[in-house]
């Protein structure tokens, strides 16, 4: 099905429908009711007198509820009806749907209302990869409700649908209601859709969308507990609120963990725990909602690898990549129970642990996770380097694993400049940066928290030697850049990519080499005008709509900007931030996972990437990290240091009630920087642009501790 889609979600349960609320998914469409990585409904179509109603409007009330306004279909484009239909849907453990039909005419109405229901119980991987089922589908009318089921050995998944309205005619493919509505009267029913793992014994208490008031209050609390932003540049205020709400929506409590809510990676494909995505999102959101980082650290620690398991690419001390619950995982046709195929998640876990403690002052967690942190450090040195060249690399053990185990995880992301593919095992450059940073940070933790000066000294020496070796082996003087990777044949993978920005964030780049990287990052080859491309124009593999070969990823850019700031390139950091934030306007202030890398001067708007996830956690977190970077917020012991370098378009910016080791603090700044992109503001859609009088005098940085 094409056209705009409407998604509501709660935890890892979500519904994707068309704008009318209907679902009629083909096997490869990501539409339907999904939970536990399984599609519990693939057909859900409301008809009145045999026709699908016309859509008037759709109202996203909240991330977990939506309302559809419709009138009965007439078969023409003209709408002039005395009847109106309202469908209000709320997701929980399944969902509930209130259907109301009002009759505004002076005459009674007689209608046939049908709700067609069906389920293919596809594993999300089957939807993504278009695979066939191996078990048996069944439908049954039970206890006045409709049961849709799937069975393969003891693996049973069931959907149970009930209506509050009797009599309804229930059949194996849905409900039929013969409806009489008085003049100026209303007919109403409520449909509950429950889901079940295993054969359901009783669905009497199923209320698919229950606990709505609780969730509404929870969202209110979440927003009230987050810092408040006031800014003269409307797009920033809007994207900030959008990001906070989407982060709230993406929080979920995994069924297999009791450690609190952590961010899922993205809708619809990645509503699950991902080591890398959860860590990056937690880092981005740390100054705003630090509890998410704690939940992430505890959850990833709970599932830290303990054994060598080649099917799952598990090794002792390794942090997981992805956890799934669907049929293919259950029958071990996929290794995601959990799967450990990520070479960067382990050092990123250590980086988050240190950054979390620095920001919040919660060093008890560093003490609690000492054992897991030491195991992670040991993984880096014992298992991370497969071919003994001193660098952390990756190579899957089995075909079911991932070929590329870095953030650019598509199969063809690590290419030579001539466009040819590199050999495994691959040691991508940004992973080495993370390893360096993790060791430097853990040296501090070892000395100051774990009381182990010997380990601290060893880590410092190891990190320093590693930095020297890296700057020697990865630097390409002729290209003025670090190599993307060193491959299994020991060859330099020489494409120019955005990965060099991550090296700035980690601090592994020598100062003189960093300056050359900044030139490249801000050149037309990498900077599209909206953001830094994943691969530079002119490289053999470059493709502006290649997943990791030229698209622009907001999260990538947020890390790059953070890196630019680390090396003192504040104007460049602001330029990257402004470009991406300007792009957000074209996506209704919800940044997608990625967008096309066409030059801004050519397209004038950021071109959507066809299958990008939205909302996606680390795209959602990107504006938050841009804010931190541009405000220059850094924790210094019990204090928050604020050194703003804001684009002058921002005008006056106040961020208040920032949580941290200091309790709550406020940050103020005034725009002083010309990023060279502000003049493009009037071209943005739907923005009210304040008059610009030119760069204003900088307001002194300050932070207030209350």
């Amino acid at each position: 099905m094409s056209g705009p889609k409407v998604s509501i979600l709660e935890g890892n349960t979500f519904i994707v429908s068309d704008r009318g609320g209907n679902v009629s998914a083909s096997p490869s469409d990501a539409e339907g009711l999904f939970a536990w990585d399984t599609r519990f409904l693939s057909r859900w179509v409301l008809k009145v007198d045999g026709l699908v109603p016309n859509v008037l409007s759709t109202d996203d009330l909240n991330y977990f509820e939506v309302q559809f306004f419709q009138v009965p279909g007439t078969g023409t484009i003209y709408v002039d009806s005395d009847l109106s239909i309202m469908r209000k849907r709320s997701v929980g453990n399944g969902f509930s749907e209130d259907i109301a039909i009002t009759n505004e005419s002076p005459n009674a109405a007689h209608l046939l209302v049908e709700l067609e229901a069906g389920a293919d119980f596809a594993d999300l991987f089957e939807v993504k990869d278009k695979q066939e089922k191996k078990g048996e589908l069944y439908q049954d009318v039970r206890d006045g409700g409709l049961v849709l089921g799937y069975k393969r050995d003891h693996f049973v998944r069931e959907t149970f649908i009930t209506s509050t309205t009797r009599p309804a005619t229930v059949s194996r493919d849905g409900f039929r209601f013969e409806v009489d509505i008085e003049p100026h009267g209303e007919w109403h029913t409520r449909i509950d859709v429950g889901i079940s793992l295993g054969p359901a014994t009783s669905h009497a208490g199923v209320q698919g969308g229950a606990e709505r008031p609780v969730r509404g209050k929870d969202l209110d609390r979440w927003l009230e507990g987050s810092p408040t932003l006031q800014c003269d540049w409307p797009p920033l205020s809007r994207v900030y609120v959008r990001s906070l709400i989407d982060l709230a929506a993406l929080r979920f409590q995994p069924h297999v963990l009791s450690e609190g809510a952590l961010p899922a990676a993205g809708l619809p494909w990645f509503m699950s725990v991902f080591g890398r995505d959860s860590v990056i999102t937690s880092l981005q959101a740390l100054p705003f909602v630090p509890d998410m980082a704690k939940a992430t650290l505890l959850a990833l620690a709970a599932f830290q690898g303990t054994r060598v398991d080649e099917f799952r690419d598990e090794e002792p001390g390794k942090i997981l990549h992805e956890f799934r619950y669907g049929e293919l995982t259950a029958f071990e046709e996929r290794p995601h129970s959990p799967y450990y195929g990520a070479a960067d998640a382990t050092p990123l876990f250590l980086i988050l642990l240190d950054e979390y403690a620095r920001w919040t002052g919660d060093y008890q967690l560093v003490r609690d996770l000492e054992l897991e942190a030491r195991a992670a450090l040991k993984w880096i040195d014992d298992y991370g380097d497969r071919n003994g060249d001193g660098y952390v690399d990756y190579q899957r053990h089995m075909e079911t694993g991932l070929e590329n185990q870095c953030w650019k995880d598509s199969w063809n992301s690590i290419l030579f400049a001539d466009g040819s593919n590199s050999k495994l095992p691959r040691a991508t450059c940004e992973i080495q940066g993370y390893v360096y940073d993790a060791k430097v940070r853990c040296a501090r933790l070892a000395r100051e928290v774990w009381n182990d000066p010997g380990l601290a000294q060893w880590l410092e020496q190891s990190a320093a030697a590693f930095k020297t070796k890296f700057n020697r082996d990865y630097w390409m003087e002729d290209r003025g850049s670090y190599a993307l990777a060193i491959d299994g044949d020991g060859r330099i993978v020489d494409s120019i990519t955005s990965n060099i920005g991550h090296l700035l964030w980690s601090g592994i780049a020598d100062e003189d080499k960093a300056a050359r990287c900044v030139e490249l990052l801000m050149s037309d080859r990498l900077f599209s005008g909206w953001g830094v491309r994943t691969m530079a124009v002119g490289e053999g593999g470059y493709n502006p709509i290649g997943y990791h070969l030229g698209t622009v990823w907001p999260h990538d850019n947020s890390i790059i900007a953070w890196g630019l700031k680390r090396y003192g390139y504040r104007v460049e950091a602001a330029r990257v931030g402004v470009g991406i934030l300007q792009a957000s306007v074209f996506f209704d202030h919800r940044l997608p996972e990625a967008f096309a890398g066409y030059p801004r001067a050519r397209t004038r708007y950021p071109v959507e990437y066809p299958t990008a996830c939205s909302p996606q956690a680390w795209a959602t977190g990107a504006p938050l990290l841009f804010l931190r970077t541009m405000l220059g917020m850094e924790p210094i012991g019990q204090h928050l240091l604020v050194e703003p370098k804001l684009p002058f378009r921002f005008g006056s910016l106040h961020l208040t009630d920032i949580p941290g080791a200091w309790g709550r603090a406020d940050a103020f700044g005034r725009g002083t920087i010309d990023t060279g992109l502000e003049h493009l503001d009037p071209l943005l859609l739907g923005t009210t642009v304040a008059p610009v009088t030119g760069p204003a005098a900088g307001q002194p940085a300050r932070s207030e501790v209350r």
Partner: protein
Amino acid sequence: MPATDSATDATVPEIFDRLASKGQVAPLRRTSGAYEFDFDGGGHWFLLLDHGTPSVQSKVEHPTCTVHCPAADFVAIAEGKENMITAYLRGDLVCAGNLAFALTFRHLIPVAA
């Protein structure tokens, strides 16, 4: 899924003896609760976990979770030949109560399987 080799597998009592003498299991050092195991084909066991140290009990009034499965499947899991998480997802093993706690049992099984 690995098949169980009944000729070399331990018995259920042997497994619980082994668990009871394990001492503290480091990854579970902050975890306490009680598992109830109810095996098809007979056998009912309670395993208390006190800050990561397991002990076998004759009865626990309010177990944190109840795990129900064929004894042979439990043996396969406890011997490290079967993955507890996929067994749960397949429906070969049923958990009532706190699922997250039930799955911590995977830390009590041998690493080199």
